[in-house]
């Protein structure tokens, strides 16, 4: 890629070679109309309205690539005619129900109809019955649909569910005279549009996907809408509060759209969550899990005084990572002042992992971000149930596969139909739990520069290799000469006579051959199939940029330290960019800000978790706290960015800052602590009010600030432990993972997220077992036991029982000793 100069409408623009004209124009403030194109996705070419003239030739700006010195005119008379005809076509048979349409003016059909000056219609075709469909959380009004296929594109290229497709519409063909009389592009676009409508790929009437709602968000008209939002409010009445999603570590930019609840209740209510879908895609939790606020809280002075007393008495503060950086800093300051033990096991595991990692890497943080993952073309994922742990990591992975011609390896014991469904260029390898070390060694073996790798490790890796002789069948081409007798007319005599002719033929022949090949025992150890090396070779063809995504399975692994060092070695000695998925919303922030401890003292205060005195934003504690949508502050995301979030809803009670002030700290607001975040860890001394939160037209993320990846002293010693071959778990496995769309008690509280709590079994596992759905079972491991109902989940496969953490009534963690897998016995109650 090199920088080039193009000229659009007389404006000189610097862009990258191979950049789409549309993106280059948008990034530089030149307007080219486009309906079907989505930034980050592959061009759909459905609307054809982005026609421009490049060097005298009409091209589509969304899929024409920039070349040096190109001259582009965005409007000519011919293009104007085309565009007007296209908009007229879109308006054919479009219902005139703008007054009740949920798009309520945020409508690209309206906008472009006015932009192109369509004041009268010249085309017509007989309409067909297009009934509206209720697809669960999404409502499809086919009558309003303009078949721009944006929903199909985003579902395929970003989300990876491939749940939508175009299906036949039926009905009349276009009148023949239009082919001659209409502008060419408008006709062909109409011809395609008139034959199709959006349908479901699974052939049923129910949308069975990971329910992210991105299709409804990108819909330019009111055809696809969120069922919960139908006829609730007009867009213009809603006030948009820019925020950062507080459910997982991706830290997506969202806006809470608020309005008064009703005529009777003037309090604000969140009606929906919107996103800048050109630059960020949300998951179902982010989009639908917005009403988890701690409502109707007043200042309860008695409870507050008790809380202050409790803080004076306590020696431990337990908290979760659903907390802002500022609150984490308040806790840290209180710890410094009163010597509390700060307990957060999940963040402690991540913190320790990061620390061990930096001993070799020499930096506090990993090198990559999810944007870089999306842009790389070979991705390896280890130790994370990606679709549940961080949906955006899955989107990045899928985006690389579909748009960047990428390939991926997905190492996980739990088989995942969603990941497998991403395409043929992703290979999932189902390994045994606790084998993560072997996988990392395999990655070192496959990708690390052996020359530079410490000799001891190189030698250890070499010990897995042996040569073996195998017999392969090869097809070779052999030339055979045959003598063929045939009857031929003798031209001289006119008599037919027999002639012999020599004909040479090439025939394929199979031969067996013995060859010596390299046998890598690591393949077998990780549970890869026999032809894995061939598969890998195919996957690796033409790959240049590599990303490694690691997740929470590694942080709490019994050999976490060794894994952290191995991960650092992979990053150091191979081309891999590394991304670690923080286990919860702000685990990274907490890991950087707090000094954590693992032991609980005599009297503990729990913040959003059970303690002897509980502060809770869930409304079930001894003192109420504001939830994430009721407070301002910053959150540290997986992309190493400190993102600001604002309060969407009012909160009438006390905050952590009030308690801290009562205990002798002094700050006006919680956000007064924003500039005080530790500079030594890469934070900046910036005031909260100055932190931006938006994207530019070029897709640049202008949100908060990027953490500085601080260099730390690293040890010369790069030794790592060998694979622990003894370590293993029993047959019947359990895994600590949430279903898609659920992360914590907060998502559980949201009314639109209706996942049933219980223990999850894949359909295949359930059919094989003696249990039925809905039955109560007792699950017993070496750490404890719980009783829960069985729920069938078609988003998982294989025979591992999945236990969620989002429901605090189901104390799943009690069954695990840190590591996310364990073996357990299951029996009917």
């Amino acid at each position, binding site marked *: 890629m090199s920088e080039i100069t193009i000229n659009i409408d007389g404006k000189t623009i610097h862009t990258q070679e191979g950049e789409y004209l549309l993106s280059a124009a948008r990034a530089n403030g030149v307007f080219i109309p486009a309906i079907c194109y989505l930034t980050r996705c592959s061009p759909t070419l459905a609307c054809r309205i982005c026609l421009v003239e490049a060097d005298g030739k009409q091209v589509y700006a969304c899929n024409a690539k920039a070349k040096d010195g190109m001259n582009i005119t965005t409007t000519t008379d011919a293009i104007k005619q085309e565009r007007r005809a296209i908009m007229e076509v879109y308006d054919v048979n479009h219902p005139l129900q*703008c*007054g*009740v349409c949920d798009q*309520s003016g945020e409508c690209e059909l309206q906008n472009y109809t006015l932009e192109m000056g369509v*004041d*009268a*219609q*010249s*085309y*017509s*075709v*007989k309409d067909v019955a297009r009934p*509206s469909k209720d697809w669960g959380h999404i409502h499809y009004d086919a009558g309003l649909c303009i078949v721009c296929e944006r929903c199909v594109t985003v579902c395929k290229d970003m989300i990876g569910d491939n749940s939508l497709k175009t299906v036949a519409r039926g009905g*009349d063909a276009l*009148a023949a005279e239009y082919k001659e009389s209409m502008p060419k592009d408008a006709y062909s676009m109409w011809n395609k549009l008139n034959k199709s409508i959006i349908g479901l790929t699974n052939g049923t009437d129910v949308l069975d996907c990971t329910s992210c709602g991105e299709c409804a968000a990108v819909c330019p008209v009111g055809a696809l809408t969120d069922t919960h939002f*139908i*006829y*609730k*409010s*007009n867009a*213009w*009445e809603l006030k948009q509060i820019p925020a950062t999603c507080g459910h997982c570590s991706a830290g997506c930019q969202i806006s809470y759209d608020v309005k*008064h609840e*009703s*005529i*009777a209740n003037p309090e604000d209510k969140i009606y929906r969550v919107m996103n800048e879908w050109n630059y960020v895609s949300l998951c179902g939790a982010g989009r639908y899990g917005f009403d988890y606020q701690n409502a109707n809280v007043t200042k309860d002075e008695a409870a507050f005084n008790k809380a202050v007393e409790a803080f004076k008495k306590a020696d431990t503060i337990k908290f979760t990572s659903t907390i802002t950086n500022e609150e984490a800093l308040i806790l840290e300051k209180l710890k410094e002042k009163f010597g509390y033990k700060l307990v957060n096991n999940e963040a402690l595991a991540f913190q320790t992992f990061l620390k061990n990692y930096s001993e070799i890497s020499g930096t506090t943080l990993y090198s990559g971000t999810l944007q870089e993952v999306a842009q790389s073309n070979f991705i390896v994922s280890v130790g994370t149930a990606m679709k549940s742990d961080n949906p955006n990591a899955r989107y990045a992975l899928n985006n690389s596969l579909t748009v960047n011609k990428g390939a991926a390896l997905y190492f996980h014991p739990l088989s995942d139909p969603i990941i497998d469904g991403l395409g043929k260029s992703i290979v999932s390898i189902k390994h045994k739990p606790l084998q993560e070390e072997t996988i990392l060694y395999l990655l070192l073996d496959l990708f690390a520069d052996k020359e530079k790798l410490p000799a001891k490790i190189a030698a250890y890796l070499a010990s897995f290799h042996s040569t073996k002789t195998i017999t392969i069948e090869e097809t070779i081409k052999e030339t055979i000469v045959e003598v063929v007798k045939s009857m031929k007319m003798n031209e001289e005599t006119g008599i037919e006579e027999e002639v012999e002719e020599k004909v040479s033929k090439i025939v394929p022949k199979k031969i067996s051959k013995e060859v010596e090949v390299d046998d890598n025992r690591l393949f077998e150890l990780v549970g890869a199939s026999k032809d894995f090396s061939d598969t890998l070779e195919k996957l690796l063809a033409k790959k240049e940029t590599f990303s490694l995504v690691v997740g929470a399975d590694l942080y709490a692994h019994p050999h976490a330290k060794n894994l952290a060092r191995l991960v650092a070695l992979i990053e150091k000695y191979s081309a891999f960019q590394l991304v670690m998925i923080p286990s919860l919303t702000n685990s990274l922030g907490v890991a950087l800000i707090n000094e954590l401890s693992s032991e609980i003292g005599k009297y503990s205060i729990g913040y959003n978790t059970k303690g002897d005195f509980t502060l809770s934003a869930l409304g079930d504690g001894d003192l109420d706290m504001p939830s994430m949508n009721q407070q301002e502050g910053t959150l540290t995301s997986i992309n190493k960015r400190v993102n600001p979030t604002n309060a969407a809803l009012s909160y009438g009670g006390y905050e952590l800052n009030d308690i801290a002030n009562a205990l002798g700290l002094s700050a006006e607001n919680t956000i007064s602590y924003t500039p005080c975040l530790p500079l030594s860890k890469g934070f900046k001394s910036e005031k909260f009010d100055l932190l931006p939160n938006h994207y530019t037209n070029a897709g640049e993320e202008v949100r908060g600030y990027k953490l500085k990846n601080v260099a730390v002293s690293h040890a010369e010693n790069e030794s790592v432990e060998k694979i622990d071959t003894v370590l293993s778990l029993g047959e019947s496995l359990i895994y600590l993972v949430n279903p898609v769309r659920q992360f914590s008690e907060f998502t559980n509280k949201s009314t639109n997220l209706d996942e049933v709590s219980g223990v999850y079994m894949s359909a295949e596992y359930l059919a094989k077992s003696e249990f039925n759905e809905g039955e109560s079972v007792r699950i017993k491991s070496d750490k404890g036991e719980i009783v829960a109902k069985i729920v069938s989940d078609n988003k998982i496969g294989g025979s591992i029982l999945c236990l969620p953490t989002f429901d605090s009534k189901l104390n799943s963690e009690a069954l695990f000793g840190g590591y996310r897998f364990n073996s357990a016995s299951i029996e009917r109650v």
Partner: protein
Amino acid sequence: MNHEQFNNRNVSETYYLVDIEDYPTDGWGKFKRVVKRTFRGELFVGLWVVLREMIKFDIHTVQYPQEKMPIGPRYRAVHEMKRLWESGTERCIGCGLCEKICISDCIRMDTRVDENSRKEVTEYSINLGRCIFCGYCAEVCPELAITHGGRYENASEQREHFVMFEDMLTPIDALKAGKQLEFEGFGAITPHEDERVKKTPLSY
């Protein structure tokens, strides 16, 4: 530019300036005026007019509130909600444009999706304490559903008394009796509308 047309302040030929004698400036002049007015008997002129009209029995006084003057069809008093002539259902589709355009922010509505998956207005209120009767809501209404009516008597204990949807809606029996009046003010369909509109071709 010729300013002559601005200088002639005679609006029309039928207008004339009233001949008023100059006001007295000194004390003696003022005293003379008082004496003159006092003994001129102007009081009896007024009394005579009243007596004359009483005897003639040609009384022009409107006996409000027993009697009321008719008001113009474009008068903007308390709002009315109209029904469709054919079906009798409410015209309001809950689009919210009146709520949006209202400059005194006195209209609010709650909507929901009803059993027939149509948009239903569950609550609609106008705060008459804030309404300035500007008529924008009637003008913007795409369905001619909200209009101004002629009810100008709004005596109440509180200025803030709301009018609810049900109070404004044409009673169904009034509709059936053909008593629903169309509003002719801003927002109403202009005459010859059909001639101005370009027809959309149809393939039926």
